[in-house]
């Protein structure tokens, strides 16, 4: 982050982290999410992978307290499931989301893994699990099913934010125009230089021929 021009792009990145597919607030009954799919995309594992890359960051931004664990395994023939853990509504109201998670030290908690270390844990007492089969599904279809099964509240950007975003977009368009103008100018200059150099060469050749 050195020059102010690059800082403009930061705004866009941040906006993309907040708004877009997957920007939704989950109901308080949901205690955690777990995704299980393969490390590589063959055999229908592209959808879950895209869901992780495009939708999950936004979900995590709006629901920072909910652990979202991704367990990837090298086995492509295995299943691709998304498990949503619901706790009982009464318990949700009584305890804050993070209190329970903090009881165990970090090293012993489930964590994301790319070597199949943390498969989906069985539900705890008073929890129920809803799973989504993600294999051979498009990430948008997965998101749709996810929103339906969780009952999440989808967020839209506020008018202010939309306005800001439009300004950034305008600036980018303007930059493209400016860039093309500049390119034409440079190209013309180079062509002229090239022509001059060629003319000079020819003149030299003629002079050399005359002197002989």
């Amino acid at each position, binding site marked *: *982050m*050195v*020059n*102010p021009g690059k*800082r403009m792009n*930061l*705004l866009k*990145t*941040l906006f993309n*982290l907040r708004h877009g597919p997957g920007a939704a607030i989950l109901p308080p009954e949901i205690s955690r999410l777990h*995704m299980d799919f393969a490390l590589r995309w063959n055999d229908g594992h592209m959808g879950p992978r895209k869901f*992780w890359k495009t939708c*999950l*960051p*936004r*979900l*995590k*931004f709006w629901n*920072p*307290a*909910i*652990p*979202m*664990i*991704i367990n990837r395994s090298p086995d492509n023939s295995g299943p691709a499931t998304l498990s949503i853990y619901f706790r009982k509504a009464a318990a949700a109201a009584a305890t*804050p*989301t*993070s209190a329970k*998670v*903090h009881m165990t030290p*970090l090293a012993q*908690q*489930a*964590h*994301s*893994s*790319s*070597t199949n270390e943390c498969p989906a844990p069985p539900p705890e007492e008073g929890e129920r699990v809803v799973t989504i089969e993600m294999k051979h599904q498009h990430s948008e279809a997965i998101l749709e099913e996810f929103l339906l099964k969780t009952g999440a509240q989808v967020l839209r950007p506020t008018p202010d934010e939309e306005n800001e975003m439009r300004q950034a977009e305008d600036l980018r368009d303007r930059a493209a125009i400016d860039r093309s103008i500049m390119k034409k100018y440079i190209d013309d200059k180079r062509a002229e230089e090239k022509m001059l150099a060629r003319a000079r060469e020819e003149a030299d050749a003629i002079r050399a021929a005359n002197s002989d």
Partner: protein
Amino acid sequence: MASTSQFLASLARLSLSPASRPAAASTIPRFLAPSATTQIRCAGGGTAQMQARAREKEKLKKKKRQQRFKEYKYAVPTGKGEQFSLCDAMRYIRAAEVGRPPSSVTYEVALKVRTIKNGPVIRNRIRFPHPVKNDTRIAVICPEGSNAMHDARTGGAVAFGEQSLFEIIKANPNNLPFNRLICHTDSVQALNKAGLGRVLGPKGLMPSLKTNTITKSVKTMMQEMVGAETYREKIGVIRIPIGNIQYSPRQLSDNVKTFIESIKADIARMEDRVDKDIIEVVLSSTNGPGFTLNGGFLPTDEKLDPAYLATAM
């Protein structure tokens, strides 16, 4: 495009009769009028003394010009929405890093420093209150059978000794069993004689006073080295991993504070030679975007409890 004022001006010149200039030569006393000698100096002549003085002046000017050193470019973050509190930055970063194995992701800090290009650089070691990782393997160069060797053995060094250690290094320089090397003051001569600079230098392992790796007391040096991170300024920026992605905001803020205090102490130590100051502190992560910190802690969103930012990743 002639404006009316121009016309007016020309008209005025036409209409006004030129005032007759007073005869200056007759009224001004002789000592005020430009004399013949000054005329000659302007033309480039003058006595030898004068020329020497002029040369001296020129030299001084040149010297002054050299005192102004080039600085690295920087942009100071200004305006709203460009600086973030720690919790806000962590929220974004954690969102960007979701689903990554926590062992492969760290928070990082880039500290921008206003500094001249050819001055001394900041480099030192730091021990964080919450260490980022702990895979330090230390080797100690010390005289065989000395007290220092005993200290090294009890302190948990992976290799120690003098000639035996040099042979290990020479045998397979590309697969060394250690990643830190310290040297006892008594063994410096032996180390220089062994000619290992070519092997150790590129790896940054060569013990030297500059890197603060030659010591009299091996014991204390090893203690402060375990879990310590080294940092150095490169083209005006100091970068260092500052915490595990699973750290709570409180832990991370402790680490950031320690780091900045350490840098400030370093700058204060070299104050007589150069003046540097911290321009901005950017918190980033292995795969995430960077955020300029504003020094605040609490998130802007009141509903967000800082404890939420420490759940499993």
